[in-house]
Each structure stands twice: as C-alpha cells, then as structure tokens.
C-alpha cells in the first residue's frame, strides 16, 4: 500500500490542519506517513500544498503522483491537476472556488455548506475535507474523531463537537454520493500509538536537548526557526536558556561565550544567516571553543527561494571562515540519524574544541517523518577533557593551549579556583597571550590542525545499500537519503544492479571508508539538490574517482524517486 494525498490552497486556509489529522490518524494505526510541506514565502494567499504519503513500509520521500487531491482553491486545480494518478480523485467545493467538471473522478463536495450546517462555522471546512478523504480511502471514521478530539480539546468541548460533526457529515456525504470506487486499499488496522511523527527540525532539537543543550541563541530565519521554537517551548521545563539575538553575528558569539564558560550551546540558521556567522566560526577555530551550528539550507544565492529546498551550501560550510582551522560537517538523512548526529556534533565539538556544522535543508527540516524508535536512552554525553578543581595542583600556572600529540588541550572553565585562562583570537602562546613569534605560530598551527587526525578516526562510514558489488552507485548525502534509497529499490526491481552510497558524516573525509579499487569499476551517479554537484566534486577530489553522471535538481523542490530513475534510464 502506498497512497498519496495532496491538499492545496492559499496560505491561511488550514492546509496543515487537514494533513496533520490525516497523518496522525494513520501513524496511530501503525502506518508509515510522510508529509512534505510546499509553501510560498507569504503569510496569506499564494499556492501552497501539503503532500501526505501513507504506506505500510517506511517512506521518506514524496511520490510524483497523488491518489487524492483536495483543492481548497481554484489555483490548486490549475497547478496540481497533472499530479493526479490514473483513477485519482479530485475533491473540491464547486460553489466556493467556482469550478465544475463532468469528469466522474472530479468529486464536488460542498465543504463550506457542510461546515456551516454541521460545524456552525465555515472554518470547519478542514474537518469536512478530512472526513471526506478518509471515506474515500474506505477507512473507519472513529480514529479521525479521536484525533480531532485530542487536537481541539484545549479549545473546549464545543469546538471538539463541531469539528467532529463536520468530519462525520463530510465522511457520510462521500459514502452516499461517491460515484467513484477508488482503487485505494487501506488494510484495516488497530490504533496502537507506537510510532512517532516528527519533523527533521524537531528531531534535531530533540537530539540537541537530550545531548545536554543548555543554551540556545538564534535569529529567526526559514527554515531553521522551527528548531528555536521547539527548544523555546520546552526551555523552562528542561532548564535551557534561550535568547533571541539581535542578529546572527550576536547569536554565534553568544554561543561561543556560553561554550567558553562551559555550557553546551548551539545556534541554527540558514545560508544567509550563516554568512554573517562566518567570522565567528573562525574565532571558534582559533580560540578552540566548541560550537554547534545547524545550517538548514534553502536555495540561494542571496534571499533565493526562502521557503524552498536546496543542498547548495555544502562547499560553503566546508570552507567558511578565514584561515585554516579544523571543523566537522555532518548532514543527517532522516530523523533517527539527526538525533544521533546532533549528539555526535556536541561530543566532537567538546572533545576537539572545534565548531561543528550540522546541515539540514527545508525538505529535511520541515517534512514530517514516521519513526519507530528514537534511541535517546543511548545518548552518551562526552564533555571532553575538562580539568576540575581537584585535577590541578595548587598553585598552578595553567596553560590553556598546552597540548600533547593529539593537539587537544585540557580545558578549564572560568571560575576554576586554582587557575585562570586566557583565550585569544590573535595567534597566541600556550598561555593564551598574544604573540608574533614565527616558531610559536608554526607550533600552534600544527597543534590545531593535528586534531583533524583524531576527528577523522571518529567519522562514521557512508551507508551502502544494499551491500555487495553493484554496477551502478547512486552517490548522495544528507536529505536525499529517502528518494535515493527508493530509487535504488525500484531500479533493482527492474533488474539493475544498483547501490546507494549515502554520506551523513562528511568532513573530515576518511579515505579508508572508500574502496577505490572496487569503485573504479562502478558507474558512479551523483544525486544532489544543487546546480554543480558540490559533494560529487569533493568526493572526486578526495578519492581521485571520476563521477560518471550527475543528476542535479535546483528548482527548489525535492527529488522524487521517479525523477532519479527516469534520468538514469535516459542516460543508459
């Protein structure tokens, strides 16, 4: 089973209330649901849609065809009718949007009238549409009514009843009047409430909090804002200080200050905001202060497509900042991985006293994924080498930047009773004082860069799926995980020998993870949401392997597996 529903309309029409109730209804019955949110950069109006995919196997990408299209405005019909699958059903309110059709699959439902009568208000059309869609899928209504109750119970029993009645009448209307018998076969299921439905942003925030996040500073910017809002709404309960900064420069410098003082701290932004943070990234590198920065990418250059998706900041974050200094770059492909990698980001940052960048993008951050398990209990917090009051003999002249062969200097935190510390953005002596000495400069550069070796050993390998030899390899990173994996399955079903090589821990690159001899015989096809193939360039440079084909998408929209499969076929 693999059903997709698209709900299209203007911003402010309540698209999300339909998609979220449908999604939650099915997740609670133990299905896998995925929601992609496609919206314009405006508060009201425009053309927007949510696409809900329901399956009994894990889904982490959108489908290119939908079985039900709910059009809350006429523009949706104009723009999205082509995405209807054969026998797919369009649902719309003929009077409200001024559209009529003789096509039996175009199902006019008086959403507005039902809402006014059954729900006592036009705003109930979302519940009417939800009930109607559930009826079309031939599912029971009760789980929907339960979800509605939970969603609206804070607003009072009248609100719950009006919404439930609207859904019921919408459901009954479709049952009575449907001329189509859709080919949707949803197996009946029990409500078990086992799986979780959450966005990439929520997974990142959750991972950070469970890893000991104590301080967050940020400046609102799509698509990173949801991380700040998630932390903010739970900050009081979990003793986290969150300060909205006056700009991104302030945010990252506050994070550096908090980390210097010893609190785990992070910020999140998008490409434009990260541009402003770059000087401080270099500061973290020089002063050897831990910092975790999430960059949720969106299409650039400049303001670009503010509410859409792209993977075009990889080269930027890998090279950002003046001077050579060590850093790590991670890019989760799905929420479970985001939790693990946020924990890893904080541990690497503390252990190596470096900035760590975690890349997301609008597709990853805003999409809802269904997750069976999040291993929060397994998170290990490693604060690195911090000297306590007992660790230093008294009196002690502590040298902040003294280090062994690892390049890592044991830290003390300000307030240590036996020593003080000097941290400096100028080149400095082991004591942290400003120096112009050529010899010390050489020693300090080597000491800092030495840390890359240890980090390299801790970077995890790419995911190879399926294992074993293959003819074609689809090379990707970060958020394209779901679409690439699905494409691999489809290609292999068609008799191809295809493999996914997916990188989520990108920098520093560990060459030992790549068997170049074997890969030199494989046709490598890079799949990336950007114009040039930024990871492909990097991979090629690091390994000496050539990339045989690049499947690139830079229209601000995410890949479907179909697009990948079709382009590979085109090339063959």
């Amino acid at each position, binding site marked *: 089973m693999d059903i997709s529903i698209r709900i299209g309309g203007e911003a402010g029409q309540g698209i999300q209330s339909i998609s979220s109730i449908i999604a939650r209804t099915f997740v*609670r019955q133990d299905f896998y649901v995925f929601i992609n949110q496609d919206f314009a950069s405006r508060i009201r109006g425009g053309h927007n849609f949510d696409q809900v995919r329901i399956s009994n196997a894990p889904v982490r990408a959108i489908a290119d065809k939908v079985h039900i299209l709910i059009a809350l405005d006429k523009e949706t019909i104009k723009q999205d009718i082509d995405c209807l699958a054969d026998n797919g059903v369009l649902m719309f309110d003929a009077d409200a949007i001024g559209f009529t059709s003789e096509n039996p699959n175009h199902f006019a439902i008086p959403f507005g009238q039902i809402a006014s009568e059954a729900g006592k208000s036009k705003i109930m059309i979302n519940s009417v549409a939800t009930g109607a869609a559930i009826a079309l899928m031939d599912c029971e209504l009760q789980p929907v009514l339960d979800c509605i109750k939970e969603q609206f119970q804070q607003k009072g029993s009248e609100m719950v009843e009006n919404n439930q009645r609207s859904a019921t009448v919408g459901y009954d209307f479709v049952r009575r009047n449907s001329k189509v018998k859709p080919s949707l076969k949803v197996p009946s299921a029990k409500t078990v*409430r*086992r*799986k*979780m*439905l*959450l966005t990439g942003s929520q997974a990142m925030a*959750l991972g950070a*909090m*469970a890893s*000991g996040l*104590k*301080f967050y*500073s940020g400046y609102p910017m799509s698509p990173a804002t949801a991380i700040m809002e998630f932390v903010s709404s739970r*900050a*009081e309960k979990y*003793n986290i*200080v969150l*300060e909205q*900064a*006056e*700009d991104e*420069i*302030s*945010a990252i*410098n*506050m994070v*550096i*200050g*908090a*980390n*210097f*003082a*010893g*609190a*785990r*701290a992070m910020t999140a932004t998008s490409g434009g905001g990260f541009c402003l943070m770059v*000087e*401080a990234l270099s500061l973290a590198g020089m*002063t050897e202060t831990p910092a975790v920065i999430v960059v949720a990418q969106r299409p650039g250059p400049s303001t670009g497509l503010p509410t859409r998706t792209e993977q075009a900041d990889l080269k930027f974050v890998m090279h950002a900042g003046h001077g050579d200094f060590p850093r790590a770059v991670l890019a989760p492909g799905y929420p479970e991985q985001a939790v693990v990698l946020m924990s890893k980001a904080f541990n690497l940052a503390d252990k190596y006293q470096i900035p760590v960048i975690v890349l997301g993008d609008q597709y990853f951050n805003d999409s809802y994924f269904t*997750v069976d398990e*999040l291993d*929060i*209990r397994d*998170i290990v*917090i490693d604060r690195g080498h911090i000297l306590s009051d007992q660790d230093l003999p008294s009196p002690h002249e502590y040298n902040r930047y003294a280090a062994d062969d690892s390049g890592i200097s044991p830290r003390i*935190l*300000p*307030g240590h*009773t036996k020593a*003080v510390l*000097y*941290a*400096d*953005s*100028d080149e400095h002596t082991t*004591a*942290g*004082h*400003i120096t112009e000495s050529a010899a010390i400069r050489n020693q300090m550069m080597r000491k800092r860069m030495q840390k890359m070796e240890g980090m390299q050993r801790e970077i995890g390998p790419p995911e190879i799926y399926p294992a074993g030899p293959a003819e074609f390899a689809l090379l990707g990173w970060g958020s394209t995980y779901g679409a690439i994996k699905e494409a691999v399955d489809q290609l292999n079903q068609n008799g191809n020998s295809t493999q996914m090589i997916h990188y989520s821990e990108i920098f520093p690159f560990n060459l030992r993870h790549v068997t170049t001899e074997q890969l030199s015989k494989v046709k490598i096809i890079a799949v990336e949401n950007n114009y040039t193939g930024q990871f492909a360039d990097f991979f090629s440079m690091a390994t000496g392997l050539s990339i045989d084909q690049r499947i690139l998408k830079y229209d601000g929209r995410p890949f479907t597996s179909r697009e990948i499969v079709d382009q590979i076929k085109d090339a063959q």
Partner: protein
Amino acid sequence: MVTLEDFNSDDPIAWCPGCGNFSILKALKQALVGIQQQPHELVIVSGIGQAPKTPHYIRCNCFNGLHGRTLPVATGIKLANHKLTVLAQGGDGDGYGEGGNHFLHAMRRNINITYLVHNNQVYGLTKGQASPTSDAGFVTKTTPRGSMSPACNPLLLAVASDCSFVARGFAGEIDHLADLIKAGILNEGFALIDILQPCVSFNRVNTFKWYSDRVYRIDADLSYDAKDRLNAFQKAQEWGDKIPIGIIYRNQRPTLESQMPAIADQPLVAQQTDPKVFTELLETFK
C-alpha cells in the same frame, strides 16, 4: 584579602609610552581590589584594538575575541555562569562602530555586565582614522576634509535605551575612574562607562590637556539626581567647553538573567543533563 599583586600579569605590555590605557589599567586594578574581586571569578571579554589588550595585563579569565563582538560573547558567558563577574572592554570603534547593534541590545537586555569603553575619538591600532566619536571636522587620513558627520553620543544613546548605569570617566582622573568602575560592577544591570582617553600617537586635537581643561565632576553638584532621566538627557548632551564626568544616569530594572527560570537555582554550567529524561518528550509525537 585581595591585593593589587593578585592581579599582576607577566605578559609584556604592547601600548605606546604615555598611552591613556596605562591609567585605565591602574584604575581598573584599583577598583577590583576595592571590591575585593577574586581574579578567578572575574572574566574580561574584549574585542580588537589597543584597549582590548587590557585583560592580558591583568590576572583574570580573559576572552579576547573579535572586533565589535565583545558584548555578545560576554552575554553568553554571563548567561552560562551568572555567578562570574563579567566585564567587557574595548575602544570607541569596537563598541560604537563595529559593535553598535550589540551595544543597543545589551542595554535593552540589561544583562549584568560592566562595559568599559576606552574612548579616544580615533582609531589607534589601524594607525589614525576617524572613529564614530570623532568630532565633526576632525582631520585624519580617511577624512582629509574633516569628518563630515557629527560624533555619535554613546551616553545619550544609553540614556535613551534606559541603560541601568551610565557614566563617563577620564583616564587623567584615576581615583575617580576607579570609583566609577567599582560602582559599575556593583550595579545590578548593564553598566556603561565611557572613558575619555588621550591617544598620544594619533589624536593631536583631543589631547590630555584638551580633556583636562574641559572635564568637570558631576558629583561636585550635590543636587544632581542621576535617577532623573530628563536631567540625564540634558547632562549627556553637554560636550565642548565643559564635559561632565561621573554617573550621569542610573535606574533599577530587572536584569535579563534574573528573569530566567532555568538559572533561578544554579548556573547552567553547574547543571547536568540525563538524556533519559527526554524519553517522555517522545510520547508527544505519538
């Protein structure tokens, strides 16, 4: 008992002979001894310029960061461990030019840190360009026809921002300056101390004599009420033949950190996280 020797640093000083910074350093140490500040519980955050080298010449915890970004780093430190005494230090270019936005918002937040701005009305370390506080007509290598913009008035900005403690000191009056710094640190809230400081290398207009001839102590007038904001607006605008030094404005309003429930019991750095606690959050997604 904390003494002056406790603040001795063996880092050699890199300032020009005769620089006003020497007097400010002396006043700062004097103030720290005056309030019996333990060096290990003190953090001085500084930017880039000649003034920001100061914390290297004091035994304390020091974070010498970026030009203009002193206040955000200091804010992060204070929020992570509000038990520490946090000072921020920089010059006029650092604080009022590059860091202008942070200056406004630090005052608005009322984070409990003390900000010392060594104001010599010129860029020193970059060797003599106009600064945000250079007077109109001030001739430098970058303003050959004289600065076309009037000087920004940080004290007026501070009073307008309802800054908790607003003062002006003069490097030539060390004891008075030390008293201001003491009062600033003891003030619960954001304290701005703008310090007039002659630059012997690049400012031939606003010299030691120029300042000495003009400054007068506000506290000589016992009737001046620093809690009266309208008075403060007037006082902050005095510049020219007579320049007031002393506490121009003070008010008491809640500090940022005092309003944060997360640190009501203990500072963030003293708190441990148990990842298992967050499993309860997972239920909200089901």
